């Protein structure tokens, strides 16, 4: 509790933190709302193409399908809370407070644990936001075409989304922890998250090299495959991706645990 209390003292009057949190809080529902409006507009069109497309998409914004659809769309925006995570750790280095915290009486493990708790809390906040947005959109979107479906049947995506967010924010933290400089860390993370890994995944898919599935971000991305309508376009591949979710949960846990073990180990040994 003392670790969380101290971390709270560090952030509660940190304006930049709250600005990014507000941006996240606006962007997640905003993006989900835009997707949902697009879908709604499609439903109102009477032309044949729109009707075919609507048939193909099904009910992606009705519960329970919304849990999956919005987990997928929300996960594309992890880079926004990643800014906060990188700021948290690089601030400690630029102000040299990572040393002061130790001098004042934290152990090196306590310092790292406090940072891990930060990443967990931000992951929980983002997951809570996703859950609320999904509930609101799902409940206001009207019932699913199939009334027998349980609204909560796909709510396990909450857990998958939380794990994916924690894993990817841990990668952002790891870059900030190693690089120490805020702008450089952000640049590296955004370049990797938005460009490099997508290029590598694209190349892997094109040349059928399965190794791309084990790239750091892709490992956890594969816990939340594209929404169900994808299955109507490429059923075999969609079913294969669904069947791989469990193994990617295990890979994600292993990768995330490895990242944190590395952070704890390096922090314990290196000069501050």
């Amino acid at each position: 509790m003392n670790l969380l209390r101290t971390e709270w003292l560090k952030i509660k009057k940190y304006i930049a933190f709250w600005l990014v949190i507000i941006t996240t809080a606006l962007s997640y529902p905003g993006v989900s709302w835009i997707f949902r409006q697009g879908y709604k507009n499609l439903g109102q069109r009477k032309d044949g193409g729109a009707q075919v497309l609507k048939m193909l998409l099904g009910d992606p914004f009705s519960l329970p399908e919304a849990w999956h659809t919005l987990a997928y769309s929300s996960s594309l925006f992890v880079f926004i809370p990643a800014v906060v995570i990188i700021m948290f750790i690089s601030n400690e280095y630029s102000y040299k407070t990572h040393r002061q915290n130790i001098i004042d009486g934290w152990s090196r493990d306590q310092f790292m644990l406090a940072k891990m708790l930060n990443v967990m809390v931000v992951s929980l906040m983002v997951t809570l936001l996703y859950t609320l947005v999904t509930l609101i959109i799902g409940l206001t979107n009207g019932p699913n075409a199939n009334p027998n479906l349980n609204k909560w049947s796909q709510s396990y995506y909450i857990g998958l989304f939380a794990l994916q967010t924690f894993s990817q924010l841990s990668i952002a933290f790891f870059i900030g922890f190693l690089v120490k400089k805020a702008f450089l860390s952000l640049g590296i993370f955004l370049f990797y998250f938005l460009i490099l890994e997508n290029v590598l995944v694209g190349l892997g898919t094109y040349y059928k090299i399965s190794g791309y599935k084990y790239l750091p971000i892709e490992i956890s991305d594969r816990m939340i495959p594209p929404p169900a309508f994808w299955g109507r376009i490429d059923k075999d591949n969609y079913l294969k991706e669904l069947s791989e979710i469990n193994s990617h949960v295990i890979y994600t846990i292993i990768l995330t645990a490895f990242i944190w073990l590395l952070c704890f180990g390096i922090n314990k040994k290196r000069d501050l």
Partner: protein
Amino acid sequence: MDSVLSLNNITKFYGKIRALNDVSFEVPQGSVFGILGPNGSGKTTLLSIILDVLKANNGNYLWFGHPGSPSQRKKIGSLLETPNFYHYLSGINNLKITQSISGRGTAKDIDDVLKKVRLFERRKSRFSSFSLGMKQRLAIAAALLGDPEVLVLDEPTNGLDPVGIAEIRQLIIELRNSGHTIVMASHLLDEVEKVCTHAAILRTGELLTTGEVEEILIDDDVVELSAPDLNAVANLLQQLNENVVIDNKLNVVHITFPKGTARLDEINSFCFRNGITLNHLVLRKKRLEARFFELTNN
């Protein structure tokens, strides 16, 4: 006297550069222990090691007879190198973090230390808006929070104006008089000479000497004397000792004897027997500055 801190054969390398070599000494309880040395001598490296910011390559240290630990550091008020605070927080909010981590002091104590370092009026201003001297005073306030028995201060008067320096010096003397133990690194010899009871002198990572300041200061006995005819008295004294120097600026003669061997009464009667009446005769301690330059070959 019990030791608050024992250093045993501390060695530290930065790559191939040896920053500290086999440094050992003890800090007695209740002492003000000055660590002296020119830039790059290893003072801050040494303090960083005893505060677990740096890892020694060899050797160990004991606080109160036990290996260093977070619970011990919580009881020690420390200021290392530069004031390290969250720039976007106010002075008072930064001290709340110090209080939360160390468990030292209360909300009232935070106000008290801010008043002690004359920052109470600016307690709600952001740290980034502070001048260098104010930042240093906030760091001293953080070290003083909860009135710890032991303080580690690295260049505590850095960035302070003359009034601030005098205030901190007075504060250290008050802390010393109330039984606190203070380990202080400084390159300000005058500061160390005025407030320290013990000292260690470092040069390029080597410990040159350590002990009570009085012991370090008095290496030779320097007798200072004067008479109407300086040349006559100098010639006469050369019969007693070859180390006689005339200081024309001060209008005195200095004669150096091995430590503890100068006899002022014998010098006075020897001069008188030889027809010279002295008008000034005193045993001078070598100033720490001179001793420091001698030891560090500067």
